C-alpha cells in the first residue's frame, strides 16, 4: 500500500525534520517496513552533502566479521574521495553502516558516485547541494531518532512509509529514490508502473544507470533527464502522465520545487492542503493533521492533475 507525504514552505526554512517525522508516523499503518526522508536544507556554494551506506542494517546480524568489513569499506570510500580531490568538511556516522559527509567538490558528480559505489557494500543514497536523503528500516519515529532528524531545518521535503510487496525489506529497496547521479532530485511514489522495463531500457540505452529494481526510481531518473533536456518540472510531470503507464501518484523534488502528478485513473490517493505560507500533501489527511491539528480545508487532486510549488 505505502504512504507518501510532502511539505514545502514558501517563506523560508522551518524545522521540517520533526514535521515530516510526525506526518510519516501518522502513515505508519500504510507501510511499517521502512521509512525514508528526502529533505532540503540550506545549500552551500560548491558544497554537497553526500549520504551513503556501506552495508545493510541486517548485515550486522551476520557475525563479527562484518564490523571489520565495514571499517575497511569506510576507509576505501575515504581513499576514493581523496583520490578524486574531494575535500571532506564534515563527517557524521549516525549508524555504523550509514554516513553523512559534507564535501567541497567541483568535479563530475557521476564519476564520484560511480567510484564510491564500486566499494563493496557502497551505495550512495543522495548527493546534493541541498538534498539529504535518509532511509532505513522501521517506522518514522525510529528512523528519525537514529538519524537525529527532529531538528533538521529546511524548506521542503518528501517522505515514504513502505510496505514491501515486490522486493526485499532493506535500505536499497526503501524510498525515496535519488535520481542517480543528478544533483538535488528525489522522488516518492505510490503505485505501480507497468511499462517500467520498457522505459528503463530506453533510459539505460541513453546512458542512465539504475541502482535498484524499483519502479519508483524510474520516475526520478526520467524527471532528471527531462530537466537536463531543458523541460520545466511541470512539463516533465505532464509528459509523464502520457508516457508512464500504470497507476501512480508521485511527488518529486528539486532544489527549490515540489511537484505532484496523478495518473489518468486517479487510483492512488492524495490529499492536498494549500495555504499562503505552506503546502502539505499526503496519502491520507491524518498525516497532515499530525502537523496541523486544527480544522483545515483539504481536497483530492483529480486524475491527470499536475501541480508544482516553489520554495
Amino acid at each position, binding site marked *: 500500500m505505502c504512504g507518501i507525504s510532502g511539505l514545502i514552505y514558501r517563506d523560508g526554512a522551518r524545522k521540517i525534520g520533526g514535521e515530516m517525522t510526525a506526518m510519516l508516523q501518522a502513515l505508519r499503518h500504510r507501510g511499517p517496513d521502512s521509512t525514508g526522508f528526502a529533505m532540503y536544507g540550506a545549500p552551500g556554494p560548491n558544497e554537497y552533502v553526500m549520504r551513503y551506506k556501506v552495508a545493510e542494517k541486517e548485515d550486522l546480524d551476520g557475525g563479527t566479521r562484518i564490523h571489520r568489513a565495514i571499517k575497511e569499506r569506510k576507509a576505501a570510500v575515504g581513499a576514493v574521495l581523496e583520490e578524486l580531490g574531494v575535500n571532506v568538511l564534515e563527517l557524521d556516522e549516525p549508524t555504523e553502516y550509514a554516513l553523512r559527509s559534507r564535501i567541497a567538490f567541483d568535479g563530475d558528480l557521476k564519476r564520484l558516485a560511480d567510484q564510491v559505489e564500486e566499494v563493496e557494500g557502497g551505495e550512495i543514497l543522495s548527493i546534493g547541494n541541498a538534498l539529504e536523503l535518509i532511509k532505513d528500516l522501521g517506522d518514522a519515529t525510529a528512523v528519525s531518532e537514529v538519524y537525529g532528524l527532529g531538528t533538521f531545518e529546511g524548506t521542503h521535503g518528501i517522505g515514504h512509509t513502505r510496505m514491501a510487496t515486490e522486493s526485499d525489506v532493506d535500505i536499497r529497496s526503501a524510498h525515496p529514490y535519488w535520481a542517480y547521479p543528478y544533483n538535488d532530485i528525489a522522488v516518492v511514489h505510490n503505485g505501480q508502473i507497468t511499462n517500467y522495463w520498457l522505459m528503463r531500457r530506453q533510459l539505460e540505452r541513453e546512458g542512465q544507470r539504475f541502482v535498484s529494481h524499483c519502479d519508483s526510481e524510474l520516475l526520478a531518473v526520467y524527471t532528471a533527464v527531462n530537466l537536463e533536456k531543458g523541460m520545466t518540472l511541470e512539463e516533465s510531470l505532464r509528459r509523464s502522465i502520457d508516457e508512464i503507464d500504470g497507476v501512480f501518484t508521485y511527488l518529486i523534488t528539486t532544489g527549490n520545487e515540489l511537484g505532484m502528478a496523478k495518473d489518468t485513473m*486517479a487510483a492512488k490517493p492524495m490529499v492536498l492542503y494549500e495555504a499562503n505560507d505552506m503546502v502539505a500533501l499526503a496519502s*491520507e*489527511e*491524518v498525516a*497532515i493533521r499530525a502537523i496541523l491539528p486544527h480544522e483545515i480545508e*483539504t481536497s*483530492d487532486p483529480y486524475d491527470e492533475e499536475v501541480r508544482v510549488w516553489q520554495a
Partner: protein
Amino acid sequence: MAGMSESTSTQMGMHTEPLTGRDIKTKFTLENEGGFAYHFARDVDFNRRAEIDCAELEPTEINRQIRDLMDSGHGSIVIRNPGAKHSLVVGILNRMNIIVEGSLGYFGCGLLDGPTVRISGRVGWSFGENMMAGVCVVEENAGSTFGAALRGGDLVCKGSVGSRTGIDQKGGTILIGGDTGAFSGFMMQRGRIVVCGNAGKNLGDSMYDGTIYVGGDIRDLGVDAVQAELTDLDRAWLTRKLNMYELLPTQGVGHFTKIVAGKQLWSYDNLEPTEKKLVL
C-alpha cells in the same frame, strides 16, 4: 391507473416491463412486535444528547463509545475533534442523529442503515460505502469513491468530490454541490447521482442502470452511458431534492444533463423501491 403508471415510468426514462423476480426485502406489518425497527435496534431518545471528544481516542474506542451511548438511550451524539481519523461512525443500524464537528478520514459512515449524520468538515475516500438508509450531509469536500455501493438513503457533499463517485451504486441518491472526478457512476446499477458542477471523464462508464444528472460540463461519457431527455418529472424531482439540502442553483435545474444506461440488462429496472409503488 395502469396507463398512468406506464406513462410515468416512460417519462422518467425507464422501461415498463413488469417488475418480477425475487424479493429479499423484510416485510414489516403494524402488528409486528417492536414496530418497524430491527429487533436489535436500540430504543433511543432523540432529545438525549451526548458528546464524545475523539482527540485522544482510537477509532475502535470512538465507535464503541457511540454504541455505549446508544445503549443508554442517547439519540443525538456529537463527535468532537475527529481529526480525520478513519472508519468512524460505522455500522449504525438505528434512527438517530450524529453530528461530526470536523473531518473524517477514510471509510467514514460506512454500513449505515437509518441515522442522520451531519459532518461540518471534509471526508476521505469511501465515505458512506454500502449505506442502506438514512441521510449523510458533508459540508466540505470529499475524497474518491464517495457513496461506493450505496444502496439507499441520501448522501450529500456540498463541496467537490474525488473520482469514482457512486461506483457500483445500487440505490439511493448521491448529491454533489461541486464537481466530481473521473469514472463517476462506474458500474452503477441503480439509484441517482446529481452533480451541480462538472463531471470528469468516463462518466457512467459501464453503468447498468440508474440516472446521473450533471449541472456543469461533462468531460466525456463512458461506455454504455447515453444522454436522455430531461423531463418535467426529472426537473420536479431535482428541484425538490436539491432544495432539501440547500443546493438548488439560482438558475434552477433546466440546464442539467441527464445520463442513463444505453444498454439495459434484461433483469434490471431503474425504479427505486419507493417508486415501485407508483407503477404497481
